[in-house]
């Protein structure tokens, strides 16, 4: 699907470092080891399916298979099976046994995996604790039979080795199954629990069918609610202002023997000829350096280039590379989380925060069973996602939580202690998608909370809050009716009895008065009922209108993806972001031609994304999130 010329597996560095520092990549405790192993395998399956246009169907098994070798640990079996493209036999040792072997490395896409560390780390942990690596079965469409094998990491040489190789019959055209036996502990519940992880994946992958079995429970199946595979935008080259020096140097290794100038121009976004000019003129970069072959450039050269790039003004990156789940799909997906009273979803237009394109989506639902339970006073359950990967740790420092606690939810009818999460049986899911998401730490557990990102998330939340408040208000009216009717039943008889006692009236008068009172108050109740019905109808109308606005017919299964929410801004708009530092904007003709070419290519693919640059900084039409100010 992608026309990236560098597709294929690349390797670098050694496994030794990671094997000693597994805690940095998610293996810092017994329970986290299990979660991380599951997570890396599931991420890979979903990424692979998406890359190949396959509707994912996953089978996940996590169970205790014996006693662990470490103190306080169990032996845990984690198995993830997918219907993905399968892995060519020659790649299997690299994928599961080699670090930094990734088809996604440095590609600037909104994929779940980013740097090729994940699954090899899982193999390493399994191998270090139980002396068995990853048991893999895989079959590509081209193979008649599947390959079954055990992959181990040769830590000294950062290489994968295959053992117990066998070709077997497999009941599917293509797919991969990977199984680990590792030391760890199963934590099912709570924020960092396995259930929460799977639930989160269910929410943000409406196109996934998931079968899972956790510990002793039965198999559970969650069916997909859409047949739309998320449209994966073309990758973008990284933006120099979002990189660290090390990343900058590593990036050069992807290019082999090209001139430095060519590397800069092709390998990064927004590095235009005028930027190169500015580097020469204002930053003193020598022509000779630019003409050097990049594989011959030394650390000092890279440092010089890096510093120069940081000092010149660059246009903000394009927002075309972000991906959204879409309001329609979220609406359906959130109802898979359990019995839901009502919900609201918001897909923001892509925006630029801290020079990175991001797209924020929010789904809020009120759950029925939780409402009935005793925990109605507990804070809302928060589901956080970065590039559709659930985030489960270090909540307090996360941009998403930062945004959630600074929105005034009381405006929308929710209870909320000061500067805290709102209270009640709500699930609040926030998904941030960006090809260059900034995490607080190496194990990718929290999104760094920059002011711009927090503000963008807040806006999405406020829009969702406004939509939610319509439901809450109509519900409040129904409760009011309930109260009124109760009122009548309580006070009516007391009033009549009092009057009868004071006047000394007869029993027949009393009966007649009671009858009359019922009639009067019955009329009132009817009026109140009518008011509630009217409020509900208005809500219904609003929902219809908003669906229509998003171009979805009521009964349209998996209708279009909010096309008009991603409004195209004229190319001039994009230029506004550019400051005066660079000498000149790129010639408009060229920019246009490029955009057109891309548009045509995408159309040919049958995938319609956006034509030209769309920084889309302006507010979407719905509501005015400024209300709070």
């Amino acid at each position: 699907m992608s026309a990236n010329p560098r597709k294929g597996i690349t390797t670098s560095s050694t496994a030794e470092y990671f094997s000693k520092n597994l805690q940095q990549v998610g293996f810092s405790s017994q329970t986290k080891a299990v979660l991380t192993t599951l997570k890396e395998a599931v991420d890979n399956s979903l990424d692979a399916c998406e890359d190949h246009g396959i509707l994912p169907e996953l089978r996940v098994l996590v169970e205790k298979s014996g006693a662990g070798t470490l103190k306080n640990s169990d032996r845990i079996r984690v198995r993830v099976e997918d219907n993905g493209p399968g892995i060519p036999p020659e790649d299997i040792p690299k994928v599961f046994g080699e670090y930094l072997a990734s088809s996604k490395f440095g590609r600037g896409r909104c994929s779940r995996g980013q740097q090729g560390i994940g699954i090899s780390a899982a193999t390493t942990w399994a191998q270090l604790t139980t002396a068995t690596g990853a048991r893999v079965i895989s079959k590509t469409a081209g193979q008649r039979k599947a390959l079954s094998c055990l992959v181990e990491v040769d830590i000294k040489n950062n290489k994968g080795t295959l053992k117990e190789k066998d070709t077997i019959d497999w009941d599917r055209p293509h797919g991969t199954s990977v199984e680990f036996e590792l030391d760890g502990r199963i934590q099912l519940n709570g924020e960092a629990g396995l259930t929460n992880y799977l639930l989160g994946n269910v929410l943000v992958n409406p196109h996934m069918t998931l079968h899972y079995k956790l510990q002793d429970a039965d198999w559970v199946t969650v069916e997909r609610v859409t047949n739309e595979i998320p449209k994966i935008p073309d990758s973008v080259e990284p933006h120099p202002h979002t990189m660290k020096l090390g990343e900058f140097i590593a990036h050069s290794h992807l290019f082999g023997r090209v001139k430095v100038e060519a590397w800069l121009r092709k390998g990064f976004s927004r590095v235009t000829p005028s930027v190169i000019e500015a580097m020469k003129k204002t930053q003193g970069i020598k022509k000779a350096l630019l003409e050097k072959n990049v594989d011959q450039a030394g650390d000092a050269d890279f440092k010089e280039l890096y510093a120069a790039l940081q000092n010149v003004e660059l246009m903000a990156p394009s927002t075309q590379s972000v991906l959204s789940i879409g309001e329609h799909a979220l609406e359906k997906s959130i109802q898979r989380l359990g019995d839901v009273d009502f919900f609201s979803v918001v897909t923001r237009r892509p925006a630029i925060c801290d020079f990175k394109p991001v797209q924020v989506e929010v789904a809020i639902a009120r759950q029925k069973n939780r409402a009935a339970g005793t925990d109605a006073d507990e804070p809302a359950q928060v589901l956080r996602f970065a590039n559709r990967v659930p985030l489960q740790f270090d909540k307090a420092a996360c941009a998403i939580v930062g945004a959630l606690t600074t929105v005034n939810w009381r405006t929308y009818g929710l209870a909320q202690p000061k500067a805290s999460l709102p209270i009640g049986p709500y699930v609040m899911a926030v998904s941030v998608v960006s090809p260059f998401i900034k995490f607080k730490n190496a194990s990718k557990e929290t999104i760094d909370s920059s002011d711009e990102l927090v503000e963008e998330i807040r806006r999405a939340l406020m829009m969702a809050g406004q939509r939610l408040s319509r439901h809450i208000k109509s519900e409040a009216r129904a409760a009011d009716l309930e109260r009124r009717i109760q009122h009548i039943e309580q006070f009516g008889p007391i009033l009549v009895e009092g009057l009868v006692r004071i006047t000394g009236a007869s029993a027949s008068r009393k009966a007649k008065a009671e009858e009359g009172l019922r009639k009067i108050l019955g009329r009132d109740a009817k009026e109140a009922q009518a008011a509630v019905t009217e409020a509900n109808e208005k809500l219904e109308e609003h929902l219809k209108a908003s669906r229509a606005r998003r171009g979805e017919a009521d009964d349209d299964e998996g209708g279009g993806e909010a096309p008009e929410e991603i409004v195209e801004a004229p190319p001039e708009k994009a230029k506004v972001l550019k400051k005066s530092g660079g000498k000149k904007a790129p010639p408009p003709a060229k920019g246009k031609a490029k955009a057109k070419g891309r548009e045509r290519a995408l159309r040919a693919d049958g995938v319609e994304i956006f034509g030209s640059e769309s920084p889309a900084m302006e507010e979407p039409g719905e509501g005015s999130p400024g209300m709070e100010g």
Partner: protein
Amino acid sequence: MARTEEAIIKLSKRLCDMMLGDLEKAKRPVLEATKCALDNTLYNHKVGYLTPGGKMVRTELNVSSVKKMSRAVFMLEVLLRNIDSGAVNTKRELYYISKGEIKHSPRLKPLDFEEQDESDETIDFITEMLECYREDMNCYANDRGGQTYSQQLVVEETLPDGTKATIELSQLGTSPFQPKNRPQNLKLRTKGKVDFALIVESEGTANTLVANGFTKRNKCILLGAQGVPSNAVRGWAKRIQDQLAIPMYFFGDLDAYTLQNIYRTLKAGSAASLIRNSDYSAPDVKFLGVLPEDIEKYDLPDYAVKESDPQEARALKKASDALKNDPFFRDSRNKGLAKILHWLLKNKRRCEQQSFFSVSPKDPVMPEKIILEKIKNRVYV
């Protein structure tokens, strides 16, 4: 207006009978009560006190008012029972009596009063509906203030059992006479001529004046108001005015609060008590001071009103509102009082009644001298 017990019982029964009759016809009963608020307040200097206009508060039975009506009928029953048995209660006691009734009869649970405000409101609603005083329904407030001293005054009280008691104030030694909140039962006479009655805002200052011999040297009646006058003080002043027909003066602080809340209430009643002002105000009482001109004449220490103080700021705001909306201050007869309010708003200063003690610190009788001088020279409003 005051009503007799028989009238109240009759009126209550008729009202309940009407409500029942409406209900039988599936018609919504409507209760009407005089609207007791400034926007329904009239003032005519010939009448002398604030009277209600034509506005009524209509309460029609519906889901939102059914609770209020049920509570009113419930409380009415309690009050009628008190009238019947001759029992007497304060509002707070009635709050507890209601709670007790409800405790013993679970069916009444929905009526329960959470706070005393709610039962007080119900009692007020009933009296506004029946246009009677709560004292007529044997409900007495804990009335304070009004301690009275005189060498001439004799009070004759008719007790509930019809017997009479006679109190000669000159026989009470240093103890004052304390009026009760139903002064209508008191008959006044004097031994010899009385020149005037003086109402002092601060009860402490009233006591000081008496201790220093004010009532020995002057043929007068002297009483302390103790701040905003209670019903007892108001009814008592009215009684003195009606029965003795002597000049009456009020001596208090020079500030917006005293003028509006204390003096105006004493003289003309209040908007909240429109239905009882006729018996609870003394329209002839004069404002003796402190007057703005006294500050200069006696070189009284005064001080600036702190607008940062929320209470004082509110009083000033109320004063400017009063000049615009309060029919009492807008009446041409009360121009002098309105002028003082203007002065207060403009100068933002205040001067306390006790400042008279600064004039000649070594002479404890100095304040008395000034008061008498002011009366003699008619320096009052």
